[in-house]
């Protein structure tokens, strides 16, 4: 579970690290991804495990379009820049939720029979549900891939450089908007991947994103905005804390533990565990 939180959060961390914009519609991106893999399953009988790359690709395009159509302009605002970004992405979240309700109705849906659904695997006497296990493996692979991508490829370097100094980057002929759009696409693709996997074992409904979004923000902030490794670590911590809280407190209070740990961490390190400056 923690690794999945991490996977949801890492896209957010990427977007934030890239350009200091918090995407408050992140949960809704997740919701869209879950619906996509649901419909791919319902109409074409494509198992979520197979459709995950498709969903990720679709979300990539979606993320890039959102950047080009909305966020690009929000970043240009001279006055109240922080507010404009918060409320632009927030407004987008509300619209997406409304659209989901309009087209998909508020009904709860689930994917009844996928390859993984409901199966468990026994490892050294411990029973692990397969979907979560696959989710965890995909998360680790995605983190490794992203880490490699940012630190080893040209485009990753361009991303980093654009974040450091957009002006200088323009001088050497890199188009800031293209880099950022790509970054948004990548962030959205990661949450798309998470959504496709989660569609197997979570109910799908228009507000589903909201319940994960706050945890994603907490995960990112816990690790420190802008740090991929931080999001990974944050995800694991959040997963563990949730499991421990669930043991000592009533289930309805399990998120309280996560929030309390977040508050504790930022009071001690106001920039999160692995955040710079």
């Amino acid at each position: 579970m923690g690794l999945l939180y991490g996977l949801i959060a890492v896209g957010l961390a990427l977007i934030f690290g890239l350009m200091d914009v918090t995407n408050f519609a992140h949960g809704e991106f997740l919701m869209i991804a879950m619906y996509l893999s649901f419909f791919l399953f319902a109409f074409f009988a494509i198992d979520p495990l197979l459709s995950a790359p498709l969903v990720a690709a679709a979300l990539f395009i979606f993320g890039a379009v959102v950047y080009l159509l909305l966020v690009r302009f929000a970043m240009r605002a001279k006055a109240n820049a922080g507010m404009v970004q918060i409320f632009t992405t927030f407004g987008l979240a509300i619209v997406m939720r409304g659209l989901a309700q309009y087209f998909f109705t508020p009904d709860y849906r689930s994917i009844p029979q996928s390859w993984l659904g409901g199966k468990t695997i026994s490892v050294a006497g411990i029973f692990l549900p397969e979907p979560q296990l696959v989710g965890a493996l995909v998360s680790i692979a995605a983190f490794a891939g992203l880490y490699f991508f940012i630190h080893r490829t040209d485009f990753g370097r361009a991303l980093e450089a654009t974040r450091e100094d957009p002006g200088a980057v323009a001088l050497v002929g890199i188009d800031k908007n293209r880099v950022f759009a790509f970054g948004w696409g990548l962030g959205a693709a990661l949450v798309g991947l998470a959504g496709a996997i989660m569609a197997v074992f979570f109910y799908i409904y228009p507000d589903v994103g909201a319940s994960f979004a706050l945890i994603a923000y907490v995960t990112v902030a816990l690790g420190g905005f802008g740090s991929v490794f931080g999001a990974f670590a944050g995800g694991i911590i959040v997963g563990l804390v949730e499991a421990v809280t669930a043991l000592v407190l009533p289930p309805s209070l399990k998120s309280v533990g996560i929030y309390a740990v977040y508050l504790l961490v930022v009071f001690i390190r106001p920039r999160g565990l692995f955040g710079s400056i």
Partner: protein
Amino acid sequence: MDKDFAARRRRDLIIAAVLAVIAALTPLFVKDVVVQNILILTLMYAGLSQSWNILSGYCGQISLGHALYFGLGAYTTELLFTKFGVLPWFGMLAGGVVSALIAMGLGYPFFRLRGHYFVIATIVIAEIGLLLFHNWEWAGAAMGITIPIRGDSWLKFQFLRTKLPYFYFALALCCLAWFVTWWLEDSKWGFWWRAVKDNPDAAESLGVDVFNSKMGAAAVSAFLVAVGGSFYAQFVSYIDPESVMGFQFSLLMALPAVLGGIGTLWGPVLGAAILIPLTELTRFKFGGSGRGVDLIVYGSLIVLISLALPRGLLSLFSRPKKTGAAR
């Protein structure tokens, strides 16, 4: 410049008085209960947004957790009323004091955080409050509290036959929040807040007590919002955690100010006057279908306005070029 400022302040006060009188007279012409309801909510949100604006607009500490203070006001009042029979008027005061104290208590750790870390901390703390009230048996847990009917009087702040007293109270609350903002704008604190918002480090180096001025803003803001929460509880006469401490209240308080012009005297009033009737009407027209059209309309509006007018609608009225220096 100083003369301009004084003149503007006098003008603001006169406009406010005229608007208040006009608002006070509207019930003479508007008899429709649905419309009266919308007017009451509009006034309430104008007041709430004005209070939110003190901390988030003037002082620049963007809080998306003010639902906590709203809920605390509502719960303090109603718990005192239903469990101990304390009149809502005292409960209201108690709720305000409790919220202000909690806001200051939270200020100690929170005001060290900056930017997104602060915003997320405020959301998180409100969410914790919500979950705790959800599980607090004595306070009704998820079932909430139904406020018993104890008669129709100003003393008990309950009115069964007419909504008018609620209307006048909401108006009074709105005027109070406006007046407090107006008064603080020209005080030492007002200037400090703007300095803190623009550049906390520079302000600190010039001798502004950054921490204490943030604390002051938080206390005033939380107090007024809690009074709004008490009012709301009496008005709807049923509260549960979700309906008074839900995240939507944090948003609904922030949006009018953002829409009208954040950190301005008139922004919240203007924003509420447009946004709340619009919200209520879209909900009235489309909400019943349960298909989310109201959300689509509402959300698109937020996106459009925040992109097109980052300073809020108020910036349309201010003469170009002059604003930058004056405010």
